């Protein structure tokens, strides 16, 4: 215990160890927060749920805080929903005749950004028995112009896409609606006219009790803490949930690999002879096994589950290069007098191996383990980059893969690549720095140089 305390104190002399430790603490906190704030099932629902979950998000936009570094503020998404009292400005129903009612909804919103929105849509849900309501929409600009948008006969579920309305496009002289509707008419080049806009939805219903609910969305060009991907999903979920996955994957793989490797080396050294010989030969063969192609085959033919892959990774790395290092150390310890003593009072082989040999190696094992973690974290990302990521869980590697597959680098959507990459880098560096310092503390031979 005292030795541990002393080692920890010694660690404090390495600035890189402190920085690395801080990074690890931060990542662990982030991981705990992710698991507590968004339970597993909720995370899966948010990431795999479907359009209704992320339909309100814009497509491939950077995070909202990037506006701080911009002169021209990009718009955030504006949602106005008639079922949400706080965003509905007014809704009136007047009877026109015996079988005709006029439902009028207005949505007000302030537009105070320097750029045009990404897209404009109105989603409608009509309740009726036979004849759906007839809906016409109007756009009122801050300077009081009223622009007729389009007419639709609403079905139970109806989507009106501004940009795909040919007649509207013709009326706007070919300029796409999201630009034309927000432009200042007195300026040559399209400039945003800031102020209060209004959308009026005028529905004629033809049945008693027939009603219309509408949701208007002006998709922004920035979103949330982390931006969105090509399927409009909020990257925050994947970044948050990627943390516990990466940490547990790296830790489990490193732990499994180094402990089993050490045990095998100890057994080989203790029993010697054919056992040792066999272990040595297996190690040699194993080093020639093409690890990544095998993992790829597992991913393609067996299962893409991250935990199956983890098992294979451990299986393929236990007879790795580490065995030689451990073997050399056990060879030395085996000759120590206290082992001799244990043998003379009749301790069993297994007792000697696991109670006397192995504990002596633990100081070497710990740095080994910590330095091993980044390699496995990156291995997971590498597999994801090859398209073999877990089909359900969101991971950092999968984000980079998505970004690459959708040409994020070519199209300048750097946030998409950089966010997971920076987190990966942090995880890698944190563990590498701590492991490095541990190595120097526990292996005094290295400390001199």
């Amino acid at each position, binding site marked *: 215990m005292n030795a541990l305390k002393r080692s920890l104190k010694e660690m404090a002399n390495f600035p890189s160890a402190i920085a690395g430790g801080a990074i690890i603490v931060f990542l662990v906190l982030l991981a705990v927060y992710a698991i507590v704030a968004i339970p597993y099932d909720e995370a899966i629902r948010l990431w795999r749920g479907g359009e209704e979950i992320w339909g309100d998000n814009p497509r491939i936009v950077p995070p909202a805080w990037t506006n701080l570094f911009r002169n021209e503020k990009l718009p955030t998404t504006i949602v106005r929903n008639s079922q949400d009292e706080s965003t509905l400005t007014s809704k009136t129903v007047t009877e026109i005749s015996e079988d005709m009612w006029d439902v009028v909804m207005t949505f007000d919103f302030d537009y105070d950004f320097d750029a045009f929105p990404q897209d404009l849509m109105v989603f409608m849900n009509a309740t009726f028995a036979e004849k759906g309501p007839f809906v016409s929409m109007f756009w009122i600009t801050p300077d009081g112009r009223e622009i007729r948008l389009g007419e639709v006969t609403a079905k139970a579920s109806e989507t009106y896409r501004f940009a795909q309305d040919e007649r509207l496009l013709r009326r706007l002289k070919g300029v796409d609606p999201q630009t034309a509707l927000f432009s200042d008419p007195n300026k040559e080049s399209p400039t945003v006219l800031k102020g209060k806009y209004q959308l009026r939805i005028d529905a004629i219903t033809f049945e008693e009790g027939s009603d219309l609910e509408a949701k208007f969305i002006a998709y922004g060009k920035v979103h949330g803490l982390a931006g969105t991907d090509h399927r409009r999903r909020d990257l925050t979920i994947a970044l948050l949930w990627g943390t516990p996955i990466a940490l547990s994957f790296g830790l489990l793989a490193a732990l499994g690999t180094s402990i089993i490797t050490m045990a095998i080396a100890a057994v080989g050294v203790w029993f010697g002879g054919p056992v040792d010989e066999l272990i040595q030969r297996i190690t040699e063969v194993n080093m020639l096994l*093409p690890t990544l192609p095998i993992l790829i085959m597992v991913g*393609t033919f067996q299962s893409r589950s991250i935990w199956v892959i983890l098992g294979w990774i451990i299986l393929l790395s236990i007879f790795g290069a580490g065995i030689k290092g451990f073997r050399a150390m056990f060879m030395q310890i085996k000759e120590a007098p206290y082992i001799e003593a244990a043998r003379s009072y009749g301790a069993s082989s297994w007792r000697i191996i696991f109670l006397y040999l192995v504990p002596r190696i633990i100081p070497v094992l710990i740095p080994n383990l910590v330095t091993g973690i980044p390699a496995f974290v990156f291995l997971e990302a590498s597999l994801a980059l090859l398209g073999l990521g877990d089909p359900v869980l969101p991971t950092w590697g999968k984000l980079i893969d998505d970004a690459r597959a959708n040409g994020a680098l070519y199209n300048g959507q750097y946030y998409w*690549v950089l966010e997971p990459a920076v987190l990966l880098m942090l995880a890698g560096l944190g563990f590498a720095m701590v492991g490095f310092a541990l190595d120097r503390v526990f292996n005094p031979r290295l400390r001199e140089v």
Partner: protein
Amino acid sequence: MTEASLPLPAAAEAPTEKPSKNQALKLARYIVIKLISLFVAVIVGVYLTILIANMGGYVDDILKGQIRETTSIRISMDPARKNLSMAERNQLIDELVAIEEHRLGLDQPFLVRSFRFLGRAITLNLGRAQHMASDSGSKEVRNIITERLPPTLLLMATCNFILFFVTLFFALYLSRNYGNLLDKLVIALSPTSAAPAWFYGIFLLLLFASVLGWLPFGGMVAAPPPENPVDYALSVLRHMILPVAAWIISGFFAGVYGYRTFFLIFSMEDYVELARAKGLTSKDVERRYVLCPTLPNIITNFALTLIGLWQGATILETVFNWPGLGRLLYTAIGLYDSPVIIGSAVIYAYLLAITVFLLDFIYALVDPRVRVGSGGAKS
């Protein structure tokens, strides 16, 4: 310069009374033993690969499904067989499927087939691809792979050659000036090697291809390829800058740190002190008394890195669209083309074995113990 003169001082260190013929014989025996053990290792490795690839007969199921599907489509599209009844048609399909499965050997027990696969894989008779074809139009997996091998070898050889010598000389320089600012910086930066090359590749692409636009996004040569061979070579060179840089960034600091530590440990030996005391120039001391004894260690170290790096190459190629084996593997995964995936795994096993053998050979040349001592110094 140094590398050319390496074997010489090593030989000078060895006791000279042994006749050189004996030495050559020992070297040859060492190499033959290595070659045989590596070959056995390759056979075992390839067999394991086949076992893994056939996990639970999954590949067979896919293959059988494909046979049934293509046969059914062929029969139902055939106008001559339009008048057959449903039962007759099904019977015909079953018969044809059985013939096809027999042709492919799918009706034999797996154990028998696995050894046949092994024989074919070892002789590089890798079968025909299911979906992919080589650029020349061949569907033979062997042709597809041999077409992709040169780019991979070009990239890997360049990367590792540069990496090895750059890190070696830089480490020598640092061990001479150890403790200075640069040395401390390298130690501080050595954890950055935890990230693989493709990871730095993404950053390099972002910076040099996307933001600055100086270098291409990927590929091996400009499209359309230049006619003139000189222009062609220049174009390839231009496309190689980023992947090679990514490779070197990822391997550099840890490599330098490792070698530097070796040099420092060895330069503390008494015989180095003695050599210094004798008044030899520091260059001589470095070359004869520090570099020579460390070289076997360094080569072992490099061999281990290289083996680990082979798999990094797959993804580096994918990220940079380099038309090599790695990218082939990536495309094969996407198309679910199992013969190509298995074929690539076999080729990788061979490449690893060849790498290990070459390094063992160099090791034998450099380490005098191999020639005069009790055989392999590497256990």
